């Protein structure tokens, strides 16, 4: 049987689907495995966010119609929240997105659960997006769960963030104002035939005019679109514009700057995620005893030492090329070697 990597290189839909599962179930292992696919040319990625029910999935369906008509291949990832009680999830975005009789090579839709992940996205999202890039989709769409401070993560994953709003929710928009202004690259007023569309438009214009981020010279300022996603009104104009942006010099500069911040954030998150798993593994065999004379900080230092020692041992067993691993590895001469202290305390059982 061909390996998962080979099947991915052969662009098998099933392999892509299974690789995304692996990224969700074992984010670190998957990131390591799929790094063997090598570097990939970045693909155009658009994030859609906005309050529940504003029409994000319906809009994606309308965008897919456009993409299919133009012969573009599109990969979609849609994230829905997991239930905090059962850990399960009811993923309903696909229901509104799927085109009848679709060609699975041309339209790939994958529903993911946030699995309690803080950012409102899913734990393996970075790797999953890069798998879609490797597969060679012309366009990648990412639908997030509603908006709020927590959903800011989406802006570090995609080129453009499209915020989908609907008329008649003035108060909610006021409440999320600062978050929205931070992440939005484009605004969309969906269900635009409803009363209140004009009011929403002027509210957004006022917000844009007063947000500090947009006041400087030559800066990218979000445009506002109107659509009726359910019957496609306004969607072809939006689609055309999304593709003409690539020739816009102001936007190009903006995207380049954004890419730097994105990479920083992605590396930062990757390090955190990795340490989160290592830490959980290191703590698993230990029964913490509040009576022992260690404070939390002191224990944490020992855990860090232990985690680094193990990782160091693994690197030594499997030397990486170049010396970046050595430069970055813990326990090097410039760091105090906390592993020399006693081993982790174990409570008497």
């Amino acid at each position, binding site marked *: 049987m061909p390996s998962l990597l080979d099947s991915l290189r052969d662009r098998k839909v099933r392999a892509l689907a299974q690789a995304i599962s692996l990224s969700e179930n074992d984010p670190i292992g998957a990131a390591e495995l799929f790094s063997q696919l090598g570097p990939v040319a970045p693909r155009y990625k658009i994030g859609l966010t906005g309050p529940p029910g504003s029409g994000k999935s319906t809009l994606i369906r309308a965008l897919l119609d456009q993409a299919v008509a133009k012969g573009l291949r599109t990969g979609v990832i849609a994230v829905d929240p997991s239930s905090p*009680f059962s850990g399960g999830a009811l993923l309903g975005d696909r229901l509104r997105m*799927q085109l009848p009789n679709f060609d699975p090579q041309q339209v790939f839709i994958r*529903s993911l659960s946030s699995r309690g992940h803080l950012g409102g996205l899913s734990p393996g999202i970075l790797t999953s997006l890069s798998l879609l890039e490797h597969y060679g989709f012309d366009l990648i769409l990412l639908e997030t769960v509603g908006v709020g401070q927590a959903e800011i993560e989406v802006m570090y994953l995609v080129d453009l963030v499209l915020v989908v709003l609907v008329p008649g929710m003035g108060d909610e928009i006021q409440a999320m104002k600062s978050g929205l202004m931070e992440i939005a690259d484009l605004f969309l007023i969906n269900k635009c035939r409803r009363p209140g569309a004009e009011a929403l438009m002027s509210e957004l214009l006022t917000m844009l005019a007063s947000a500090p981020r947009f006041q400087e010279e030559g800066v990218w300022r979000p445009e506002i679109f109107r659509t009726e996603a359910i019957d496609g009104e306004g969607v072809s104009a939006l689609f055309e514009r999304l593709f003409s942006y690539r020739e816009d010099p102001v936007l190009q500069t903006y995207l380049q700057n954004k890419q730097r911040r994105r990479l920083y954030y992605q590396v930062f998150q990757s390090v955190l995620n990795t340490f989160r798993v290592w830490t959980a593994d290191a703590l698993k065999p230990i029964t913490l005893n509040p009576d022992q004379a260690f404070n939390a900080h002191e224990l944490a230092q020992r855990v860090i030492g232990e985690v680094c020692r193990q990782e160091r041992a693994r690197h030594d067993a499997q030397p990486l090329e170049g010396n970046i691993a050595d430069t970055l590895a813990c326990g090097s001469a410039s760091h105090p070697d906390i592993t020399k202290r006693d081993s982790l305390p174990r409570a008497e059982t």
Partner: protein
Amino acid sequence: MDKQKIRILIAKVGLDGHDRGAKYISQALRDRGYEVIYTGIRQTTDDVAKAAVQEDVKFVGLSLLSGAHNQLFPKVVEKLRELGAADIVVFGGGVIPADDIPFLLEHGIRAVFTPGTTTDQMEEFIRTVMEESA
């Protein structure tokens, strides 16, 4: 296996538009900790199979009230096989006469749940299948 990672696609094939049962099952399974993808009414058998592959589910649950189960359920099994996904387990539910059940089982439907089936019974089935494939 971690329940949360078991993914199940629930779809309504055929022409009837009553999806209360399918939605109820979807919610019940969500509440038991499964990840459920609900794809709605009037799905073609081809689209259900293609969606199951893209969603990388372990199970596909088909619901149907219009009586065409003998034609439609086996078609999903066949299409999955064609897509190289014969390992995805198909089960069915709805108003299905007892006499039709052996036919469906012979054609690759792993279980048929008629009205009155409890969520516990469905979970038991899921658990059995997972143990087999572990």
